[in-house]
């Protein structure tokens, strides 16, 4: 068998697994570079950071997610109609989210939690629907891969990661959206938060649990590279515990790290 680096294998498999998802991810990475560069010419801020930072990070996050899903699809022995539909829903939902976020960013306004106008009040729940479509379709694809887990630890971990990530991410996200902000107490600004992530250092921040939970999608298959099922399940447990711990801290209005 031809030997490849895990990363090379991941990328070529993702491309083969779903060209639709692959090219979406590539376009999103281009979008990310543009959004990270825009603050050079546009110095407007929202919550103390550039208005373009949020779209840039969502582009990055969605690109990583979509690539992971495309790679997981490549592991399947055959691609069913259901997988095709789930991929289409995923791409549609992802671009819908991005389009609205960019629209709001260009006006220097919030996208999530924004119900200031009738249009915003309609769009915010639709974003929630988009997010749930994303996680539901990844959970479905994860389940299809999981069903073929007899095919090895990588398949098992890929399927498990997608399902665990979707469940944890959705629960954390649903709780997030039942509030009027992702901050619970504290400064209500990104300026005093941690670098890059901007998670609050002065109060609770529900974004942390959402982040850790969703990224189980990547952490779990990464653990499978060790070739040991025990490591895979240890990482699943660690992801669940860390999500719960960071969620508990946020609900108690405590920052994960405080000065």
């Amino acid at each position: 068998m031809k030997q490849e680096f895990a990363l090379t294998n991941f990328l070529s498999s993702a491309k083969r697994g779903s060209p639709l998802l692959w090219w979406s991810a590539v376009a999103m990475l281009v979008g990310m570079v543009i959004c990270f560069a825009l603050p050079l010419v546009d110095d407007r801020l929202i919550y103390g950071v550039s208005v373009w930072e949020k779209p840039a990070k969502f582009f990055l996050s969605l690109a990583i997610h979509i690539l992971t899903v495309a790679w997981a699809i490549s592991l399947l022995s055959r691609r069913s109609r259901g997988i095709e539909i789930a991929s289409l829903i995923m791409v549609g939902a992802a671009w819908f989210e991005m389009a609205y976020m960019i629209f709001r960013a260009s006006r220097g306004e919030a996208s999530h939690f924004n119900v200031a106008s009738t249009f915003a009040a309609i769009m915010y729940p639709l974003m929630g629907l988009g997010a749930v479509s994303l996680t539901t379709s990844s959970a479905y694809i994860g389940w299809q891969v999981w069903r073929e887990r007899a095919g090895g630890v990588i398949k098992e971990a890929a399927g498990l990661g997608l399902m665990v990530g979707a469940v944890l991410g959705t629960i954390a996200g649903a709780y997030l959206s039942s509030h009027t902000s992702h901050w619970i107490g504290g400064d209500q600004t990104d300026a005093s938060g941690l670098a890059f992530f901007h998670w609050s250092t002065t109060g609770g921040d529900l974004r942390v649990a959402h982040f850790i939970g969703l990224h189980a999608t990547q952490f779990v298959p990464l653990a499978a590279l060790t070739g040991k099922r025990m490591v895979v399940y240890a990482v699943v447990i660690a992801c669940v515990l860390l999500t719960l711990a960071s969620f508990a801290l946020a609900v108690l209005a405590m920052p994960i790290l405080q000065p």
Partner: protein
Amino acid sequence: MSPEFIFQLANVIAVLGWLVLAEAIILKKPLWRDVIAGQVWPATLSIAYCCLILFFWTKAEGGFDSLANVQKLFTFPWAALAGWIHYLAFDLFVGAHISKQVIEEGLPHLSLVVLLPLTFMFGPIGYIGFQFTRLAFRKVSAAA
């Protein structure tokens, strides 16, 4: 979580790693020594280090370009904590490396009783002590 809390936590984790290393040597389990104490533990501490740098690097004043700047950097508790975890991670890594070399090169195992506590407390002293141990026990042909 405060820097003080994470400091205590990191210390407990590091000490556990050293105990695993000692246990592995006493029970003659090279896999524990090389994989758990030598890789998993330093990697875990390194991940904590990465997070701290990622979260706080832009928040800290100072830098690496002058001693005064380094001192300024370490007046920021999170930077000092990151530096401390850097020690913990690398000292354990070096400790596991020394143990492996001492055992595989057939140096006196008892030397670890001195070398490992030195590495634990004062990393580089333990390391140079290991290099001297190596020289001292090198097989040489007796002078005529």
